[in-house]
């Protein structure tokens, strides 16, 4: 029996800007279960980052969120910062693409780690140091004790991301949200960080939300996959099901436009024509309609509702016919 840790229902995120209202997330419902890795795929303008910043209560000042986010059944959307701070330090953690933006360059890693514990957890300094060393060891940083005295810039990119993960783990979070954690890293370092995320999930049972544009990364670690476009959920399924039996034209387009090392090289790559959506000027109806090879009149009139394909595989699309097979598309 799986436990739902995080329940997101009909989430909306809007930003007031000089160019008008930007609708970054437009009614997304998602759940995260204990111990699972949920992969969230999308390109720029999909709303994939803002969705999770809203969940964490970290939206920029001109942003506002509506809908509902429940952590183990308890509503957390719109909680005051004082309460959110307690959740963020302990029950939910988030790591970002560029660890340097989240780490303070003027403070040693040890100071930044122990502060979390002495401040939030009222831990004694000696215990906080011990706990920090354990956290660094959990992410396979060697000579952890001596590393506590180092500054963020003294670490390599991959090591910094490990430090970020260790910091997020200090409070034993129930959910770890990783927003493009490997995008800035080399493939060899990426492989190591992905292996680490997998290991942490198995060891500590932490639910992981992995936000990325890279379907290869998703395939490597995600149990379930949610595909976002224009601030909406387009398709969601268990990972094997999504990659083999996708039922949304956008998912198909994404999968086929990536050159794969394990397949015969094609003369030309399959592409999705056009450009990513402008969230300040979203069309009525399906945001993908303008780029979709299977577009119907109905798609431009109203957003298709989420429908069940089978089991927990859902999609939002009016097209009922078959999708092109890979070899035909390429």
């Amino acid at each position, binding site marked *: 029996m799986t436990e739902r840790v995080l329940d997101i229902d009909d989430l909306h995120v809007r930003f007031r800007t000089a160019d008008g209202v930007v609708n970054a997330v437009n009614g997304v419902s998602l759940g995260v279960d204990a111990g699972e890795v949920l992969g969230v795929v999308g*390109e720029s303008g999909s709303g994939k980052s803002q969705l999770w910043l809203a969940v964490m209560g970290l939206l920029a000042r001109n942003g506002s969120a509506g809908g509902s986010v429940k952590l183990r059944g308890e509503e957390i959307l719109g909680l005051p910062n004082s309460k959110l701070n307690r959740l963020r330090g302990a029950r939910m953690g988030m790591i970002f693409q560029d660890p340097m933006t989240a780490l303070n360059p003027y403070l040693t890693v040890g100071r930044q780690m122990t502060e979390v514990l002495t401040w939030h957890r009222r831990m004694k300094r000696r215990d906080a140091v011990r706990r920090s060393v354990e956290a660094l060891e959990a992410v396979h940083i060697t000579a952890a004790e001596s590393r506590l005295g180092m500054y963020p810039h003294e670490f390599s990119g991959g090591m910094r991301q490990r430090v970020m993960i260790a910091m997020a783990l200090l409070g034993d979070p129930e959910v770890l949200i990783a927003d493009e954690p490997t995008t800035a890293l080399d493939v060899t*370092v990426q492989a190591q960080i992905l*292996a680490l995320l997998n290991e942490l999930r198995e060891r500590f049972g932490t639910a992981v939300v992995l936000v990325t544009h*890279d379907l290869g990364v998703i395939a490597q670690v995600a149990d379930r996959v949610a595909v976002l476009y224009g601030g909406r959920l387009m398709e969601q399924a268990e990972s094997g099901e999504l990659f083999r039996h996708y039922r949304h034209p956008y998912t198909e387009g994404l999968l086929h436009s990536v*050159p794969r090392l394990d397949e015969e090289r094609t003369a030309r790559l399959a592409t999705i024509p056009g450009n*990513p959506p402008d969230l300040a000027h979203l069309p009525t109806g399906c945001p993908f309609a303008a780029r979709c090879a299977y577009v119907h009149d109905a798609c431009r009139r109203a957003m298709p509702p989420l429908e069940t394909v089978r089991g927990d595989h859902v999609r939002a699309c009016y097209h009922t016919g078959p999708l092109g097979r890979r070899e035909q598309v390429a």
Partner: protein
Amino acid sequence: MADGAVLRVSGLRVHFPVASKRLFGEKRWLKAVDGVSFEVGAHETLGIVGESGCGKSTLARALVRLVPLAGGAIEFGGRDLAPLSDKAMRAVRRDVQMIFQDPLASLDPRMTVGNIIDEPLKTLFPDMPKGERAKRVRATMQRVGLLPNQINRYAHEFSGGQAQRIGIARALVVEPKLVVCDEPVSALDVSIKSQVINLLQNLQEELGLSLIFIAHDLGSVRHISDRIVVLYLGRVMEIADRDAIYERARHPYTQMLIAAVPIPDPEIARRRRLEVVRGELPSPLDPPSGCPFRTRCAYAVERCAREQPALRRVGASLVACHRADDPEVARAAQTNEDRE
């Protein structure tokens, strides 16, 4: 290939001075490119791969003489570019152009698209009549998929993919023979990346260009390249035809790079052994003795620390590894081939 080469690079070195740790201490050098040799054939696309810090971007800049060289030769069009003055290089830039990674950062925000694309014509062909230039700008815009009515818009009004089309038009408008593309698709979205890769392929075929395509994404490099150079800490590890590299990588570093690329198929992805990927790039300021890769290599022996391996032919590859023909290393290449 030897006689048909458009570009022949030999023993190229780029060394940057680094502040010494102590006052009056010995001057230290970062050897970003350290003795790199390769050729690019006519109408050929040569891919250059490697992780950050391997020197691939410095190499790109060195080829068009945007950074000072410490040594080596760059033969192009029958002469060596290395000793040329900036003024003499100007004439060469009609034939050798460059496309950069970040399209928006490399385009002047105060110039219109038309002016951006016209700029190289104006500076490199000062005698060309204005009408002729305007004609060329329009034709080039059309070629890269920009609309004529976009000519007076500013670069910041364009999305990343469109901006990269402007960058490509700016490089192609002078009708170069060789275009050096430094991570041209790395900053683009998945769906846009494939559009730009296809565009580069089409242009290469239509215009008979030679391309140098630099990237860290092995999937794109394999798709677009005829031959591939693998760099590590400023040195060439392996050079081979596209298919040879991916089917039977001879260098343990190439094998590791390929093993690290995630495959977008959960069934395959989960069967793969990620533990072959180990360690991190050592500091280029203090590279290991002998073979630079030995500190991460599963097959390193004592000789690798002592003696820097020279490029030599093993199978279909040129490879810099003492053990490349050892059955143990060759077996690892085999598993790449069998991976299904």
